[in-house]
């Protein structure tokens, strides 16, 4: 976006250099900062019109539609808006010129549940039109719901970038197996992909942490007359927390 001068290397968006071709890059991008601040004396309508002019003109009908979809009143002054309304204004100005790339920092902050759902619908429309949304969020269920690829940053370094589905598949899942009689962890220890086995208190249920496919585990469970086998796929939150576990080394970015 041309905000920070690179100390080394370069960043590009659509093959354009973010520093030396910043103006061209900004034409393609809709941006929402984490704290949306503006001249407090201007009304929402004035801010949208002003930013529209700075962008070389935008479709006013589309701006009006966005206001209606997010139930935003543009007639008030910026200082009179609540946090949620400021966020709506920020989202409208980011979407209003139909950018090829949206960079949104904590976009659903302060939005009520109804507006959150409308915002997710807007995101899906952008995605279905082949445009890209680059979203940063601490609300991982939201990321899981809206994003196809995620990157995880730990201590300032990108430690993982992957499809959400592949990330879940690649990461450990919990398998719970029930038996008619006393079970032994030894039945599963050493099988391919099995990282840990815990015996339940009543001695008839085993909890396995498994990475990769479950073929060997299913076969071993069948061999010991298992009654039931359930798998719990980890949420993105659990995957994220595993990256942040103290013993997890910081890996090089991909």
């Amino acid at each position: 976006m041309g905000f920070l001068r690179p100390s080394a290397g370069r960043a590009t968006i659509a093959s354009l250099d973010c520093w030396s071709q910043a103006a061209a890059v900004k034409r393609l991008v809709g941006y929402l900062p984490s704290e949306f601040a503006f001249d407090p004396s201007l009304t929402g309508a004035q801010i949208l019109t002003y930013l529209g002019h700075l962008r070389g003109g935008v479709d006013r009908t589309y701006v009006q539609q966005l206001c209606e979809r997010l139930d935003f009143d543009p007639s008030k002054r910026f200082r009179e808006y609540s946090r949620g309304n400021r966020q709506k204004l920020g989202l409208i100005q980011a979407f209003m010129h139909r950018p090829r790339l949206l960079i949104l920092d904590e976009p659903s902050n302060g939005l009520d549940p109804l507006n959150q759902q409308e915002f997710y619908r807007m995101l899906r429309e952008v995605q279905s039109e082949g445009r890209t949304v680059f979203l940063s969020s601490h609300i991982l269920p939201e990321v899981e719901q809206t994003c196809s690829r995620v990157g995880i940053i730990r201590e300032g370094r990108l430690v993982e970038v992957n499809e959400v589905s592949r990330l879940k598949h690649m990461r450990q899942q919990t398998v719970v197996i029930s038996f008619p009689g006393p079970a032994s962890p030894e039945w599963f220890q050493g099988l391919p992909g099995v990282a840990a086995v815990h015996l339940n208190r009543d001695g008839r249920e085993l909890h396995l942490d498994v990475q990769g496919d479950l073929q060997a585990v299913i076969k071993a469970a069948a061999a010991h007359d298992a009654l039931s086998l359930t798998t719990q796929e980890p949420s993105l939150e659990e995957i994220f927390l595993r990256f942040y576990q103290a013993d997890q080394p910081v890996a090089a970015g991909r």
Partner: protein
Amino acid sequence: MLRAIWLKSLREYWIAILCWGLGLGLLIYAMYATAQDVLSAGVTQIYQSFGFYGDQVALNTIPGYVTFRVFGTTLPAFLAIWAILAGARLVRGDEERGTLDVLLAQPIMRARLLLEKLLALTLAILVMMLIISLFILFGQLSAHETADYPRALLTALNVGLFELIFACIALLISQFVRWRGAAAGWTAAILVIMFLLDSVGRVQHNFDWLRHVSIFYYYNANKPLIPSVNANWGAVALLIALTLVLIVASTVIFARRDLGSVALQLAINGWRQPATVERVRALARAAGDPFLRSLGLCTLRAQFVALFWWTVITLFFVEFLTALIPSLLDVFRKAVQGNAVMSQLFSGYNVATNQGFLGATVFAFIPVALTIFAMTQAYTWSRDLDNQRLEIILSTPQPRIRLLGEHAAAVGLASLIPPLLIWLGLLLTANIINLRIDVGDTAAACFSMLPLEWLAAALVYLLATRLPAGLTTGLVSLFLAISFLMEFLQPMLKLPDWLINLSIFHLYGSPITEGMRWGPTLTILGLALVAMLAAFFHFKESSLTART
């Protein structure tokens, strides 16, 4: 200091207490120290023509002179700027910041919160007055007067009561308006009206009754420094009663009104249309607004109110003094004839001529005022960079240089308007009162101020690329203050040429009497250009977060 609201509030005032107390104290001391010389030079002849400014009681004595020059209008009105701002933000400031919600979520009664904050403000004024009373005492000693601390203390307390009243007026008004700026503005207007009522009543005896509705009148009813003036306890009681009424009214209203709202909600918006209609209407209205087409135009609009008031006040000052020339010129001529001390007072200007008088009264101060104006306008850029208001603007496909260029152009254009109107106003007034002044020299005096304004603005833009807004303005203000003091005190300091030429106000010189000084003017203009080019270069090349 964090155990109670009033202690925490008092802690926030200590810088103001020290700065205002010491600053005004030094002014009082300087006035005492020079009083005898000035009185011997016969300055009272001149001040007798300034009846609108204050009561002329025992003007030929040191206490009378100091009361007239400092305690009549100057000091109370000057300090009222701080008192009004403090009163306006007492609770409205916390409401605007959203911190009052947190405070009132604690088990504290609203009335108690307001009264504790007011107690802190009262104590701050009291400490300030104690400092001032000590400087009055030092002044008395320096002027070889009898040291009379009780009189000094009573004088300061009288000022303190005046300040407390204006703080309380601002506090009461802040209950009726949404923003502290509006409360401060309305109270400042009341201050000006009170001064005008008192002045007109004093000068025009037919309108003497006007004085009785002015707080200045009751404040000036007591002149504790002057032994021949008896104490007027009725006036003090009236001022105390007024303060109490204001406090009670503010407390009752604050305890009853909605937080973040105002005491009287007037239905001036009328009937609101359905949301969709309002939406379309607001967007259509904004679409037709020409000032939203670029950053430059938007900056011009944002500057409009400040530009209006700076222009009105400076114009009023200039026109007022110009209109006085016919009646004052003879008085000045007699006062300065063969009098070295009086000549020094007017920085070497020949005040017996029309243009010399304008040079000593108008063009010794207006360039400083307008340079400060340009600095405050450029400050909005650094402030917006600091509080991230420019982040969204900088995310639009506009080159950085263009954005900075448009802001600087708007400030440059705005700073052109006051000198232009002052010039036109001077010519018009001179024509009306049949006063002979040189069109070319007045143009030179007015338009030579432009490079000064542009240099101050360019320095702000340059420093803002690296430093936060507060430090930027602080450094540029310091440069302007030193420049002004060097030039103002040059007749006494006699600084060497190389040093005094570092003062931009010395380089400005006295074009009203000497005509256009192209060399120094172009030098300042060149410096402004260099500073602005450096600002462009640094802003283009620097990261937005590197301003620490």
